[in-house]
C-alpha cells in the first residue's frame, strides 16, 4: 500500500469541485501529476496543486492507493465520488457529495460532512466521526434507484432525508435524525440510535428501520403488530414492531402483502 497526502494550504474564494480526488484517479501517478489534475472553482478551471500540497506516493493500482487529506475540506465537494476501491481519510470536515455514487473502498471523515453524503451509493464504506447534513444515502433527484449497497456510518447526528428511495445497503446514525427516514424506500436498512422527530418510513414499500430512541410523531400509516427481540448494529434489544406504510402500495409474495418494518426500541 502507498499513501498520498494532500495538505490544503489555500481556502478557495468559492467552493471547489474535486471529482478527481479518488484512488482511481490517483493510482499510478506521481505527486506532480496529481497536482496537475483539474478541478473547478465555478467556471474557472484550476489544478489540485493550486489548493493542496501533494506528497507521498500512489500505488500502481487504485486498490493499493490510500489518500490522506490532512486538513479541512469544508469547501471541497465530491471527495471520493464514484470511487471503486482504495481508501480516503480526511482529518477534518468535508463538503457535499462525500462518496457519492461510490462503488467500493472506504472513506473516513474525521469531522463533519455536508449534505448528499453517499448519494446513490452502490458499495463500499463511509464513516463519519462527526455529524452529517441532509440527504445521507439518498437518490439523485428524480431517480427511483437510490442507495443500492454499502454502509454509511455517521457517529453524530444527521438531518432530513436519510435513505430516500433506498434499495439496499445500511445506514447507521449513532445520534439523532430530523425528519424523513427511508421515504419511498424499497429495501435497505436504516438504524437510528437516537431520536427522530417524525415521518419515519413515509411512502415506504419495503425495507427495515430501527430506532433506539423516541419517534416523536408516528405516521398514521404504521401499525404495531408485535414485539420482537433483535440484534442490530452491535446491540440487542426488544423492539415494538410496526408495519407500513399502509397508505402505500405493497408487492405480494405468495399471495401475502410484503410491508416495510419499523422497529422502535421498547422502553424498559
Amino acid at each position, binding site marked *: 500500500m502507498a499513501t498520498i497526502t494532500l495538505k490544503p494550504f489555500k481556502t478557495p*474564494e*468559492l*467552493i471547489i469541485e474535486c471529482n478527481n480526488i479518488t484512488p482511481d484517479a490517483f493510482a499510478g501517478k506521481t505527486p506532480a501529476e496529481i497536482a496537475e489534475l483539474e478541478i*473547478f*472553482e*465555478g*467556471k*474557472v478551471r484550476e489544478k489540485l496543486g493550486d489548493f493542496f500540497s501533494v506528497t507521498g506516493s500512489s500505488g500502481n493500482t487504485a486498490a493499493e492507493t490510500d489518500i490522506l487529506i490532512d486538513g479541512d475540506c469544508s469547501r471541497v465537494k465530491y471527495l471520493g465520488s464514484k470511487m471503486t476501491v482504495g481508501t480516503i481519510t480526511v482529518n477534518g470536515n468535508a463538503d*457535499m457529495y462525500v462518496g457519492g455514487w461510490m462503488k467500493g473502498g472506504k472513506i473516513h471523515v474525521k469531522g463533519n460532512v455536508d*449534505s*448528499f453524503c453517499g448519494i446513490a451509493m452502490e458499495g463500499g464504506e463511509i464513516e463519519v466521526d462527526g455529524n452529517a447534513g*441532509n*440527504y445521507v444515502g439518498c437518490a*439523485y*433527484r*428524480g431517480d*427511483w434507484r437510490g442507495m443500492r449497497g454499502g454502509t454509511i456510518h455517521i457517529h453524530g447526528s444527521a438531518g*432530513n432525508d436519510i435513505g430516500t*428511495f433506498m434499495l439496499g445497503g445500511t445506514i447507521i446514525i449513532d445520534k439523532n435524525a430530523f*425528519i*424523513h427516514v427511508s*421515504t*419511498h424506500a424499497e429495501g435497505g436498512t436504516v438504524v437510528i440510535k437516537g431520536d427522530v422527530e*417524525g*415521518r419515519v418510513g*413515509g*411512502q415506504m414499500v419495503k425495507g427495515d428501520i430501527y430506532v433506539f430512541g423516541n419517534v416523536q*410523531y408516528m*405516521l*398514521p*400509516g404504521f*401499525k404495531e403488530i408485535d414485539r420482537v427481540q433483535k440484534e442490530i448494529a452491535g446491540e440487542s434489544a426488544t423492539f415494538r414492531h410496526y408495519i407500513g*406504510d*399502509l*397508505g*402505500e402500495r405493497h408487492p405480494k409474495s405468495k399471495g401475502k402483502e410484503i410491508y416495510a418494518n419499523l422497529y422502535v426500541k421498547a422502553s424498559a
Partner: protein
Amino acid sequence: MPKLITGVGCPYCGSSCDDIECLVSDDGKKILETRNACVIGNEIFHHVSSPDRPTKPRMRQADGSMKEVSYDEAVDFTAKALIKAKKPLIYGFGSTNCEGMSAVARVAERAGAVLDNCASICHGPSFLAIFDNGYPSCTLGEVKNRADVVVFWGCNPMHAHPRHTSRYSIFPRGFFTTKGQMQRTIISIDPRETDTAKLADYHFMLNQGHDYELFDAFRTVLRGHDIPAEVAGCKREMIIEAAEKMRNARFVMIFFGMGCTHTDGRNHNVDIAISLTRDLNTHTKSSIMAMRGHYNIAGPGQVWSWQFGFPYCIDLSKGTRAHMNPGETSSVDLAMRDEVDCFVNVGTDAGAHWPIAAIKHVKKHPFIAVDPNICMASEISDLHVPVRVVGVEEAGVVYRMDNVPIQFKKVIDGPEGVPSDEEFFDRVYTRMCELTQTEPMWIPAKGHAKASSTSEH
C-alpha cells in the same frame, strides 16, 4: 377616441386571466380604465403610468448614491460583471415573458452562471416532488367543466389568486358542472381559517407543519386501514368522511400551495399529495395542480426544461453540461454557502422576498437588478436597469399555472428608450461576445411580428 382593448392578459398571479379589458388613451400611451381585473391586477395596469417610474438605469457611486447612466453603460457593466465572476447567479423571472427567459438563458450559458427562478423559494419543492413522483394534472378548464370535489391544501386563492375561484375552481358553471358551486364539495386544509377555508364544506384546521401525516392518513383510509383517533390535530371521523367524499366523486381536484412547500418536509408534502392523487385514480378521476404564484412563473420551468432539461437551479458553470441539484444549486443555498460572486436579479424582488440573511451574503459581490419598478433589490443594487412591463408594454408568451401557454398582448407603448428584458439581455450577450472576441450565436431566428393591440381591432 379612447380605444377599448379586450382579451388582455393580466401580469399578476398564476391564474393568468386573459379576459381583461383596457381603455387606452388616444395616443396609445396611457391606460384610462381597466375592467374584469382583480384589485391587484387593476393596480398593475394603473401603476405603469406612475410618474415615479424610473426610465434610466442608475449606477451606485463611490459615495453610495445612485446616478443615472445610459443603457450602453448598463449593458457594459452587466457584461463585464458576468464575465469576471467565477460563478454568477442570475435569479428571478417572476414577471417576464418566455422570450426574456430565453434571452437570459443564452447569456447565462455564455457566462457560466447559475440560472434560477423564484420557484426556488416558492414551488421549487413541487418540482422536487414531480421529479420523484410525477404530476397527474390537467388544464384549468377540466376543473371548471368536471370537478365535483375540489381540495385546497395549504393555499388560499381568495387572497393569492383572487379570481381563481370564480374563473376555474369553485363558482363557475361548466359543461358537466352546470350548477357551479352547488355541485362542488370544497375541502380546505389550512392551519388558519382563511377566507378560502370559510368557503369550504370541510375545513381541516391541522396542526401547522403536519401535512404529511394528514396525507398519510387519507391514503391509509383509502386503502381500507384504520388510523388513530386523531392525526395532526384532525379527528378520524372527519378524515374518513372526507376520504369517502373523494372516493365517490366523479372528478377530484387537488390544489396545493405554499402551505405545503414552505414548511417542514417541503417536497415530501407535495410528493405524498401526488401519491394520494395516484391512489384516487384507481377509484375515480383525480388531478393535482400547484397554485403557481406569478402569471408566468411556469414559464422558466418550461423554457429551461426544453433548453437544458431542468426547470430551475441550473448550474451552467462547467460550460459543457448543465447540473442541477436543489439544496446545492439553489439560490438561497448558494448565497448562504458563499458559492456565488455576482448576483443578477431579474423581474423579482429578492431584496424583499429572501430572508435578509441570504441577501447580506449576495450583497458582498456585484448586485444588478433588472426590474421595471423601484423595489428593495433595486435600492440596494450596484446597478438598476428599468425595463418595460410585460403584458402591458411588451407582448410575449406566458405559461399559466396549468402550463397552458397564453400569448399576452401589448396594451400601450412603454416609456421611450426603455428596452424589454429580452432586448436588454440580447445586448448584454452581444457585448459579452465583443469583450471575449467570440462569434455571437443567434439561434433561433427571431420573430418580429408579435401581436399587439393594433392588430387586434
